[in-house]
């Protein structure tokens, strides 16, 4: 029923998600799929991780305590060395306003968490770094 795709060798995914159960599920699945990844539980943490190791794609939640997804994205886009990193928004919100705002900040996709199966989201995210 689920087609397990080949892990993207040498590609790094940064998952920015503040909810531990979701982060747990995502990490579990990414490990199963053999996708190289980093987990950040806040935007601030994500910036630290990026500074250490540059990801190929960022899986970004929007509603987070602290800086929040959009502020992180803006900061990223203002940094000349980081502005080209691809970002997929994975949020519970389907607000068109947020979607528009996200695409204005040059994200490659916007996915509503509850509407997709986890595997489908991972497939979608990894498709950008294939």
């Amino acid at each position, binding site marked *: *029923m*689920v087609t397990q795709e080949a892990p993207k060798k040498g590609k790094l995914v940064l998952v920015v998600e503040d*909810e531990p*159960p*979701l982060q*747990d*599920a*995502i990490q*579990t*699945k990414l490990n*199963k799929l053999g996708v190289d990844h980093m987990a950040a539980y806040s935007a601030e943490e994500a910036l630290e991780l990026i500074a250490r190791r540059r990801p190929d794609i960022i899986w970004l939640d929007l*509603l987070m305590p602290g800086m929040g997804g959009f502020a992180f994205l803006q900061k990223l886009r203002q940094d000349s060395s980081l502005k080209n990193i691809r970002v997929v928004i994975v949020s*519970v*919100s*389907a*607000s*068109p*306003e947020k979607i528009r705002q996200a695409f204005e900040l040059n994200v490659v996709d916007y996915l509503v*968490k*509850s509407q997709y*199966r*986890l*595997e489908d989201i991972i497939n979608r995210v990894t498709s950008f770094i294939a």
Partner: protein
Amino acid sequence: MSPILKSNNIKIRIFLVFLIISFFVLASALVILHGTRNVDDYIVKIEAHGLPRLRAILEISGVSVALGRVIHDRDIPNQPLSEIKDNLLQGIPILDQAELEYQRLVRQDSQAEANLRQVGSKVQESKSLLKQAILEVVRVINEEQSAEELQEKLAAFDGAATNLETVLITARETEINLVNTYADGLDGVTYQTYRLGLLLAGVFAVIVVLAAVLLYRSIVQPILRLQNAVIRFTQGNLDTDMNLQMSGEVGELALSFSTMARKLRESYGKLQDQTKVLEKRFSVANEQNKTLEDTKKAMLAVLEDARLLEEKLASEKSNLQAVLASMNEALFVVDKDRNFVMFNTAFEHMTGLSRDTIFKYKNIDDVLKVFQNGIEIPIDERPTKIVLQTGKLFTYGIEDNVSLQTLGGKKINVAIQAAPLAKDGATIGVVVVIRDINREKQLDEAKTGFISVASHQLRTPLTSMRWFAEMLINGDAGPITEEQKHFVERVYQGTDRMIALVNLLLQIARVEAGRLKVEPVPLDLKSTTQGVILTLRTGLENKKQKVEVTCQPDPLPVIPADQEVIWQCIQNMLSNANRYGPENSTIYVSIIQKGTMIEYSVKDTGIGIPKEQQSRIFEKFFRAENALKLVPEGSGLGLSLVKSLVEGWGGKVWFETEENKGTTFFFTIPLTGMRAREGEVRLTV
């Protein structure tokens, strides 16, 4: 008239009048008496002297004539001479006696004139001659002398007789002349006296008349006038002009009467004036009274109504004042020039300005600045200005993000409602109600926050449940038995339903909170419907149902509407038809233009809605018994959301149904479509 007679004293006047009359009468008596004495003189002269003398002369003449006849009547036959002689001798004493009488009379008349005495002596002389002649005749006869002698003597006699006769004629003429003279004198005196008498009588009459007139005029007439005046007065005719210009006591009396009358007339006049005024007033009052009487009943009724009305007004007024005073909203009224006319205490509190300060600055622009999204609105675009220009209601809601800055620099978030104050169709001012929405804004933000948080907080655990269930099913945690898999699949489906339910609830919450963002775009309802049908394809195919879409007219007019909102409505109605319609059936969608509206209907041939439950069909979470039995997993929120959405754009929603025969749901949307709305959220969460 003599000045004395004008004397004011009546007694003196009357006395003077009588004195004059008496004097006049006396004078007249004297004059007449004098006249009468003259007459007597003449009468005596004539009767005592003239006429006797004349008689005596005639006597002498008669005797002379008789003697002549005695002598010359010789024709008488047989007359003896002796007889003639006797007759002659007899005649001589008579002649003497007559002549003596005459002479006595002449002597007697002391006043006799000289010629009368001459005549008297001539008469004496002629008589003596005649007597001598007679005596000669008698001697002749006695001597019987010759006839010749006798003849001679007779001739002498005739001569003496003729001489006497001539003298007597003279005497007689003298006497006649004298008597005539006397008579003339008498006549003259009588005439004069008569004339004088007449004159006196006339004068007397005049005097008497004048006196009478004088007395009449000075006494009787005034008294009569006075009397008349008094009579008129007593008869109550005070209007009569007295004109009592009189002198004397009557004058004084008249004067006092006149004064009294004048005063009386004046007071009467005043009284009359007052009376007239009073009468006028009375008549006016009377009329008014009449009118009043006429309207009294009506008035009483009206009064009662008026009293009730007044009470009502008073209570309304005090209510209004109380309302204005106790209003949380600031209220003020400006005139055409946008100067403050009135405002309530809430306005003072809101602006932090005193009543005096507001009235001192007068104009609204001097007291308030209006901002939208932090940018000052130009004076010409401010609500009061717009209302004065358009005469229509103008509002700024919470979503318009309007704030005021007062004179003191205080900034307040507000909602503004500015309504025209119209009089006779003209806008004469603006009534403005300002709501301080700082709190509302906070609440609103809290609400928005809640919805966001709820959508996040509810869906995040649901998502994790869903994902872990998904991984379990996928065998990511190791292989699971078929029974275990079946259980986890139930968990997965339940989580899925829970997510859908939360989404629907959040949608309804947004719509009901009025926070939905509406973005109308030109929309074709037919293609939208076909889009929805495509998404429902799986469900329709499962029940082998067809959907037939009819449009009238075809193509339909394009209307401005929010795609997401319309989509949600159509989807709910069609999915209901799909769920509750039988297999192998047709769902009929009709989109018909009716006037300025489009009527959209979805007809199924399904279970219908039981009669007793029809009224509750739009309630949240309500599900009809037959529907609950047929599709246990329904949320009971779909129709509630449809109703909220349709009513949100000003449309109507209703249904026609018959149990076990089918249901048709209708909604309307105006051709003008939906109005754009700056809400915070879209329908989709």
